[in-house]
């Protein structure tokens, strides 16, 4: 909140240090500064390196990299084979189905999780009976730290068979058979499991923000005869708005980068689910960007494949960097109020 305050003593006592010529402090400052510098330099180098490795793929495809056209899986196969057989490298890659899948899964999960988390956090902080609150808080923290592969396991063993056996009819399966198979590994499964995975993260952040709302503001509203729900909704939730952005950004970054779990439940096909298909849309398999990297890691020894995978990584890196910029920008107004950590 007020970081500057801690620099004060140093500034005030600066003359003392100079008088005594303390080199110990300066050495420590230099040493720690160097450590920080090295870590930052390492991260910047990583950024530059990923972009550098990604460049051939972007350069060959131009803006078409982000567009559609042809089958992504066949393109990946061709890219890999060209490098493996040491023929002229092929770079043609149109990633739209993967990007579309990433967008659908991420936005779907974040949208559901946001609405649910908002109400659950309000419930947990304000309306739940105390005994339930005491149970809920540790449970939220536990669920937020459960490894994603465990959610993936639950998805692939429970949800995917359920969708495959009960929600999809034989007729629907037959109607799309030549192109794709509706086995239950689907958009719906990925979105639902991802929602369950990121909701606890959101709830934890939201609840922290709601708890930090000054009690007096709420009591002021209650004293005016406004009911508890309206008070909390109009005063509490509104005050904590920046926290909602911050929590959503955090959860979106997790959803975007989740590779292993999504690769288990979304079905490993580079297919772009088509909303025109009606209800089947939700049951169509797809494969987002992060899962594509996991699916093709064994082909890294083929140079064009390596560049293509790095291009995918660069897109993910750029998106998550943009997200943290948004998160940072959202935090600025709340510094001004000094309400929220």
């Amino acid at each position: 909140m007020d970081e500057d305050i801690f620099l004060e003593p140093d500034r005030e006592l600066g003359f003392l240090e100079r008088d005594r010529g303390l080199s110990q402090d300066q050495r420590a400052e230099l040493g720690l500064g160097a450590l920080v510098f090295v870590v930052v330099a390492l991260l910047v180098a990583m950024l530059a390196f990923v972009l550098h490795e990604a460049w051939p793929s972007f350069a060959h495809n131009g803006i078409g990299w982000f567009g559609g056209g042809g089958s992504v899986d066949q393109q990946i196969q061709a890219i890999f084979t060209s490098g493996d057989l040491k023929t002229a490298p092929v770079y043609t890659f149109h990633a739209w189905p993967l990007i579309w899948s990433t967008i659908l899964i991420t936005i779907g999960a974040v949208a559901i999780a946001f609405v649910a988390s908002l109400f659950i956090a309000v419930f947990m902080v304000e309306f739940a009976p105390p005994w339930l609150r005491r149970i809920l808080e540790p449970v939220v923290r536990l669920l937020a730290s459960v490894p994603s592969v465990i959610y993936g396991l639950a998805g692939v063993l429970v949800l995917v068979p359920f969708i495959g056996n009960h929600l999809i009819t034989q007729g629907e399966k037959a109607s799309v058979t030549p192109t794709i198979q509706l086995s239950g590994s689907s958009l719906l499964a990925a979105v639902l499991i991802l929602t369950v995975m990121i909701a606890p993260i959101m709830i934890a952040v939201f609840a922290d923000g709601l708890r930090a709302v000054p009690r007096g503001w709420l009591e002021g509203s209650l004293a005016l005869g406004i009911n508890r729900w309206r008070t909390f909704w109009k005063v509490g939730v509104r005050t904590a708005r920046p926290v909602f952005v911050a929590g959503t950004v955090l959860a979106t970054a997790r959803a975007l980068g989740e590779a292993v779990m999504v690769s288990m439940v979304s079905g490993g096909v580079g297919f772009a689910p088509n909303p025109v298909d009606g209800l089947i849309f939700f049951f169509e398999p797809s494969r987002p960007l992060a899962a594509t990297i996991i699916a093709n890691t064994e082909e890294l020894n083929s140079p064009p494949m390596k560049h293509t995978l790095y291009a995918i990584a660069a897109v993910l890196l750029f998106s998550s960097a943009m997200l943290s910029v948004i998160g940072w920008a959202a935090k600025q107004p709340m510094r001004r109020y000094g309400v929220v950590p």
Partner: protein
Amino acid sequence: MSTVPTAAVPKRSESNASWRLSDRIGLGLAWLLGLLFCAIAAAIVVYFLVEGIRYLRPNLLVTNPAPGLSEGQTGGFLDPLLGTVIVGVMAMAIAVPVGVGIAVWLSEFGRPTGLARLAESAVEMLAGEPSVVLALFGTILFTVRELGFLSQTSHGIVLGQSFFAAAAMLSLVGLPMVVASTREGLQAIPSHVREASYAVGKTKIATTRRVLLPAARPSMITGTMLGLGRVIGDTAIVLLLLGGTLTFGSANSTPLLGMLRGTGDTLTGYIYYNAPTGDGNQPSKAYAAAFVLMLMVLALNLGVDFVVRRSQRAVRWS
């Protein structure tokens, strides 16, 4: 929790029948979703508990994975379990000193301001970075010839998969947690504590070491545990940089170093391998491993709770 009302909100005796419809719907939705969340959480926990107890046998913990088709042949998960412990310890051995160093510098020194801003945003970015990108970066970094001593080399090609490689990249996963938590702890110490220490002639670094860091220890431990939770839960880095080979593949016969330079696996990699989508497809083994991993995460959570609760009873400044 510090904002618990001193004057409690007056008890409502009136029914909410007089509320507007939208308010009643909102409250009802909050209750509904809250209870639904409880139900889902309970379902997940109970499901893994039941399946875990059903499939977990003591001998799974002491036998190694083996190739096979039936449940009897595939053995247990001793090596992945050890791998999780080793990787966790190694990654935190890097992340904690570096993270605490960064936090101290950011909170106590922080000049030049430009570098501080840059470091802050770099750490924040690292927290949101997909681990699969870190893993992909690691595959190139550790196949560089100069870093060949960290992994195995065959026919002049550095394989780049080892405990060292995985732990180095996993430490980046744990680092942001350690930095954020330690920094929060340091900033919660009021400035007059520092001034008191300066006033008796302590240098800044002595103050940090003798006063500030001990006072911020609960935060450091919390951050370490949260980071460790992320580290042992990561799968992408394990698959790419540790090899996901089920058993340890030592690089050479040197006892410890050879093993750490070799490939291995962790529980997350083992679960991935044994899920229906993996190559092993032994769901019962995956359930058992997931149960053990859940217990580890639960223990870490309880540890955090314990540390936080104890620190609340400890020193009160001012």
